[in-house]
Every structure is written in structure tokens, then in C-alpha cells.
């Protein structure tokens, strides 16, 4: 129920006083309410839940997380890593 799907904002407009937008989910485009992400710009990625953008996705944080995880992989591949850890 709380699933949120990432998508890219491709258009922003206003309908009935609400900030709305078109969001591209890997080829499928849906209308989305952007009222809770007033800072959103075309090209931003966001997490959508029941037709509302919950938050913008931080590319910087995403890259940092992936870098950290890759470092774990590289460190554990070093000789002796198993012994040190246990």
C-alpha cells in the first residue's frame, strides 16, 4: 500500500489551483499531483504514491549510497578481509 514508484517529471502545470504534472515511469506517463513538492522542476525524479509526489529523489544521496555499497564489495574482496572481519 505504501509503495512509491520513482518517475521523472516531464511537465508541470496547474489545474483547479493545484500544482500538477506529467511523470514518466519508464515509458508510462501519468498525471501526478505536485502540491507537496513545490520546488520540483522538469527533469527532477520523484517518488509517486497514489497519484501524489511524496518527495524529490536526491541524485547526490543516491550516488553516495551506491558508492558506499560498492566500497564494501571492494573491501571484502581484498585478501584477508574474511579473517579481519571474524
Amino acid at each position, binding site marked *: *500500500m*505504501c*509503495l*512509491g514508484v*520513482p518517475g*521523472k517529471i516531464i511537465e508541470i502545470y496547474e489545474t*483547479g*489551483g*493545484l500544482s500538477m504534472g506529467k511523470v514518466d*515511469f*519508464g515509458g508510462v506517463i501519468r498525471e501526478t*499531483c505536485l*502540491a*507537496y*513538492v*513545490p520546488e520540483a522542476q522538469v527533469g527532477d*525524479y520523484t*517518488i509517486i*504514491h*497514489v*497519484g*501524489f509526489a*511524496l*518527495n524529490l*529523489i*536526491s*541524485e547526490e*544521496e*543516491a550516488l*553516495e*549510497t*551506491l558508492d558506499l*555499497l*560498492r566500497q*564494501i*564489495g571492494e573491501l*571484502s574482496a581484498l585478501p584477508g578481509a*574474511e579473517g579481519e*572481519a*571474524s
Partner: protein
Amino acid sequence: MKYLTEYRDAGLVHTLVDEIRRTVKRNWVVMEICGGQTHAIMRYGLDQLLPPEIELVHGPGCPVCVTSLELIDKALEIASQPGVIFTSYGDMLRVPGSGRDLFSVRASGGDVRVVYSPLDAIKIAQLNPDKQVVFFAIGFETTAPANAMSVIQAEALGLKNYSVLVSHVRVPPAMHAILGSPENRVQAFMAAGHVCAVMGYWEYPPIAHQYKVPIVVTGFEPVDILQGLLLSIRQLETGRFETENGYPRVVTFEGNRPAQDVLQRVFQECDRKWRGIGLIPASGWQLRSEYAHLDAETRFSVDQIQPEESPICISGQVLQGVKKPLQCPAFGGLCTPEHPLGATMVSSEGACAAYYHYGREAYG
């Protein structure tokens, strides 16, 4: 798809599983709060990759599961009335009340419609001025801002034929209820990432300190879940009980302020009954008095229903992490997703339904 593919990467999954194996020394019980996380764990078989020291128990974060029988019965009664269009997220249609579900109300001629967003319910109300349109506003903090916005829109548009049946629940009071129970087994929480996208995680450090449990904000993809678990296990093995953010691309400490402002404007805290668990003080949201005229419970006078639950079902203990689905005598026999006896078999995100769908009975 960006922000999905990289978090389903098999190489990263194995890196994380290896790191968890290296880190864990003792036995730990970790709860994932959200039903979406439970579903992902079962779907990707993450539980089967973990070392035997780690037991995952499944939390109450499935709004479809925990919506009280009383409210379901109210929904059924309202949806059966002539002149009503009852709108709901699709997940709720199969949820059994005391006797039937919304599907059977529709089969008997009730106008029950599935909506993707509460704003769709608003459109239906605009297009059908001669009908009463009721929206079943269920959900945790993730869904509440969307539902709250429909209330504000209904007011702004002057819609006289729109009302909401509110069943909102909140995560932190449920964590208190779980941790405060004498039966509690949970030693660390993977907090629900999208609840935190809205609310931030400023509510969690006092809980982590009071009960000495690590709380790690966790996402929904396999890599996210294993990362949340690794951070939890690192804390447990080093005796820490901090609140950490394992989902920083989506979640900030403060959360989404515009959404929190709208929640404050539309809702106020209330005691709420959770299906299978019972009453949890201050665990829900209800409409503020300014919006009471949009409350379907008063508009349709259905506030005197007293339903009864199945005596066999152990969903309350499953929802609190005290028991696992396979410990229930009814699992897979008397109780299946087609004929659920209780909360956790009802939604595909319920722990029992997830075990059933992904064949966990074979592994015991």
C-alpha cells in the same frame, strides 16, 4: 528504470548479504515495519539469503490489514445505500467485513468504484452531483497527505456530495505498542521509508532511546532492505541504539514540510482500533472539527456497529511480531487469500498472504 534497476542489482545484493554474514555474531530479531517491505522480502527471497542468526518478523505496516472490522462494516453499510458511489483503493475491495466484502456489495448492485488517487474520487463527485460520493480514506502517514488534499479540494470546489470515511493510522504509536508489550521479541526496527518520506524521522530517536532499539529508515528495493538490515545488525552487534537513515535519496530528517502542514490542517490525533491488535491510544488521525461535515461516519449515521472477529485467527500476534504465519493452525487450510479469516491474509502485503503467495509453507 533509473532508481530501480541499480537497487535490484544482484552483485550489490550479494555484497550486502556477505557483509551481513561477516557482521552478525549473535541471534537477533529484526522487524520490518511496512507490508511493502515484507512483500519485497518474500518476493525476492531475501529471508532465504540471510544467515540463521537473523530472524525477520513482519510488522503492522499494512493499512489494508489493520483497518478495523468495525470500519470495514461501516464501509459496507454505506456502500450498500442507494444514491451512493463508494470509492476506494483497489486493495480494500476484497477485505472481508463481518459477513461480506465490497466486491459482493458491488455484485448486489452497489456502485463501488476503484480509484488510483483520491483526486479521482473528487472528479467522480464533480461528474455526479446527484450522487453522494464517499472515499474510503485508509492508510498510514504515506497516504494521508493525498487523502487530506482531497478534503481541501472538496472544500475549495464547494462539493456538497463528497465525504470521507477516515481510517488513518500512524506508525510511532504502533512501535510503542509493540515494544511496550511483555511478549515483545523485536530488537531492531527497519522503519518504513515512505512513511518517513512524509514525516521525516524526528519522531524516532526518543523511541530508540526509551526502548534501546536501533531504528533504521529503510527503502523497498532488495538493496535498500539489505542495507537497512546491515545498518541494524551493525548497531546491534556494537550495542548502539540510534536512529539512522538508510534511505537518504528519498528521506530527510525533517520530512516533507508542506505535506505535514496539510496533515496538521485537516487531521487531529485520535485513538484508533487496529484490526487484530485492538485499541492503540493516539494512533490515528481523524478529521478536525472544521471538516466534520465531510465525515462519512456522521453523514450516513453508521457509528453504532459492533462486529466480531474469528476466534482462531492469530493475526494480532503476527502483526506484532510475536508469532509467524506458519504458527497459525488455520494457515493455508481454513484461511487462504481467497477466504481470509483475518487481517494478515487479506492484503497481498499482509505477512500471511505474502507467505502463502511465495510458498513459504514448503520451508517451514
